């Protein structure tokens, strides 16, 4: 699961897709941390675009938790957006929607990160 990142102003949008479980958790975290560190350094945020994420196991949730802790330790910020219904339900049941700020769309997540990021996103969408 190679993470693709797109920059919008001081926010990074990272695409998470497929399934997140025990097997790919470590690779996911390692990849994600690169982006989190970078954005924390810039005083920005990371928005996880979960539109391609089909399923999260409990090991996958732990993975999100560790990312959350690591980001917190580095004063970074992770927001998530565009959850598929299955993943949204998992987030609701596990109340991980209280751990991360969850938004229906990436645009809304970016808007919560900074107005510049949202503006940059809109500009990219028009282009």
């Amino acid at each position, binding site marked *: 699961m190679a993470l693709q990142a797109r920059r919008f102003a001081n926010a990074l949008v990272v695409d998470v897709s497929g399934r997140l479980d025990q097997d790919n958790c470590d690779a996911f975290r390692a990849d994600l941390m690169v982006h989190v560190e970078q954005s924390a350094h810039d005083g920005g945020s990371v928005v996880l675009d979960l539109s391609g994420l089909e399923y999260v196991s409990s090991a996958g*949730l732990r993975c999100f938790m*560790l990312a959350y802790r690591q980001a917190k330790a580095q004063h970074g910020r992770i927001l998530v957006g565009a959850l598929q219904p299955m993943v949204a339900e998992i987030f609701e049941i596990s109340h991980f929607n209280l*751990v991360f700020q969850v938004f229906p769309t990436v645009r809304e997540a970016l808007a919560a990160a900074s107005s510049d990021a949202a503006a940059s996103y809109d500009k990219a969408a028009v282009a």
Partner: protein
Amino acid sequence: MAVVAIDEKAIAQYGQWPWPRTRVAELVSLIADAKPAAMALDILFAEPDRYSPAAIEKVISLPPELAASLRRLDSSDAVLGRALKRVPTALAVAGLDQDDPQFAGAPAGPPFRFVGGAESSLRSYKGFLHNTREVDAGAASHGLVSVDFEGGIARRMQYVARVGVHGVAGLAPELVRLAVGGTLALHPAAGGLLELRFGDYRVPVQADGRAHVYFGRSDPSRFIQASDILSGRVDLAPLEGKLVLVGFTGLGLQDLAVTPLGESVPGVENHAQAAEAIVEERFLKRHDFAPRLEAAVLLAFGLALFWLAPRANALRSVSALAAGVVLIAGAAWLAFRQAGLLFDPVSPALGGMLVFGMMQVGSLAEAQRQRQQLREQAARMAGELDAAKRIQMGLLPDPREVFSDEARVSVAALLVPARTVGGDFYDCFMLDANRLFFVVADVSGKGLPASLFMASAKSVLKSAALTVEGSLGGVLARAQDEIQRENPESLFVTALAGILDLETGELEIANAGHEPVWIHPPGGKPVRFDAAGGPPLCVMDVFPYPTTRHALLPGEWILAISDGATEAMNTAREFFGAERLATSLGWIGEDAGAVAIVERVREDVKRFSGEAEPADDLTLFAIRWRGGARDPRQSNAVGSDAI
């Protein structure tokens, strides 16, 4: 080239061997009449003839005058000797490894010269078996009749050897030499070989005097039956100027040899073939470096296979082996066909196959050893996991015991562990006379760490439940604090905790990221009780877990589950899901006890999963509240039931 065969027919017609020498002399005379170039007899006349006139008196008593006149007659040996003189004839001698005083010295023959120490490793006989003096008087020369049998196959014949200090040629080269004339000399030649020279002939032989005979197919047309000659039934004119070999082919005379071409041919034919090969100058040479070359080929082939086998797959290795064998065999065949050079392709080929076989056996053994190791590892792991499972299961209370004398409630619990240890657990106990505490939890992760974490989480939750005053949410918050303190693996645990007041039916629920509880009011439908909650314990450092309250009606039941139920998968990788669970719960009868509820769900999940291996633990915890003690409806109720 002709072979005069003394065969079964001759024996049948002229009596058993040995014939009277006069009859042999008659045969020789008839052949001599045809004026062949030379003749050789592959027959030894080592003893005086029993049928000589002088010998008769030794067998039967005769009148003295008759015996005397018989003695005056020529012996039949002398008759044969005279007949032999009519044509240049080589007689057979057989080399003996012991000195025979009867035949001292060397058999008479032409001068024989050794050149350049050629005789140094020549086969050397101490003595020889010879014909009787009278027969031998007719011989122009002598030839050795030793065939070297190798594994029952005549490959090499002694073309030249030493008897005492003298050189003697084999019967075949000697026959040829008689025809072409010249003296014999043995010279060293290239490749550690020797050369037997006479006239213009250069016959290559090995250092020990043996030669590989270039055998051809046995040719019946070169045989003339002795009986036909004796009875005059055959025209001998074609024999003029030819080489003639006389010998036995009678089966009863046991002189058959198997040639490398696989035929059983009479021994005499070996000599005939050898003589023919010499005349046609078809020679086979096996140089002294041949064994070294074969060893080098074997080594190279073996090393190549040794290098290749671990690097290529089985099919390629076998192909390489086959290609190598074909190449070696082809090269040896070419050398034989084109240059008459003999190389042994069998040893390198067999050696290569042996190397290959051993490597295969070796890698097989290695693979087996690895499998064994994996099995042992798996067994050890399984042992540890079994231990973990036993720890996990041993920690779980049995509601039957815990609430054995509790009439107000029916409690049942079930935990079906997945094959790998999951982190589910549940607990239930009385906080005081009326309040029943329960918790169903799931530790993230699997295996031993999860199992140990689960044990500690369970005890922390219990102590928090027993000590924290106030809300149930506060219990979870305290538990989180405690668990967090020793959580090196950064595991988290989802937990659904509840406190049921058995008197009033008041239910408190606090949820830390766990599957919601299901509630079934009497006469109603089962519903998911989506109480407010928080993230799993240990995800966030601090979280104020909310507490939700719900008043149960007598007969109302609740079911707490783990995600092993909703996320149970079938072989099509579909989840059991909340909807199927709701349907399953809807079928449960109004009066079903806690055990029946749990069993029903378990059965439905099992049926849904089918052959699919459960990925996660399945935990079901059901409570049916019958009503408080003051409630008349539960006065006849029996004790709690559980599995």
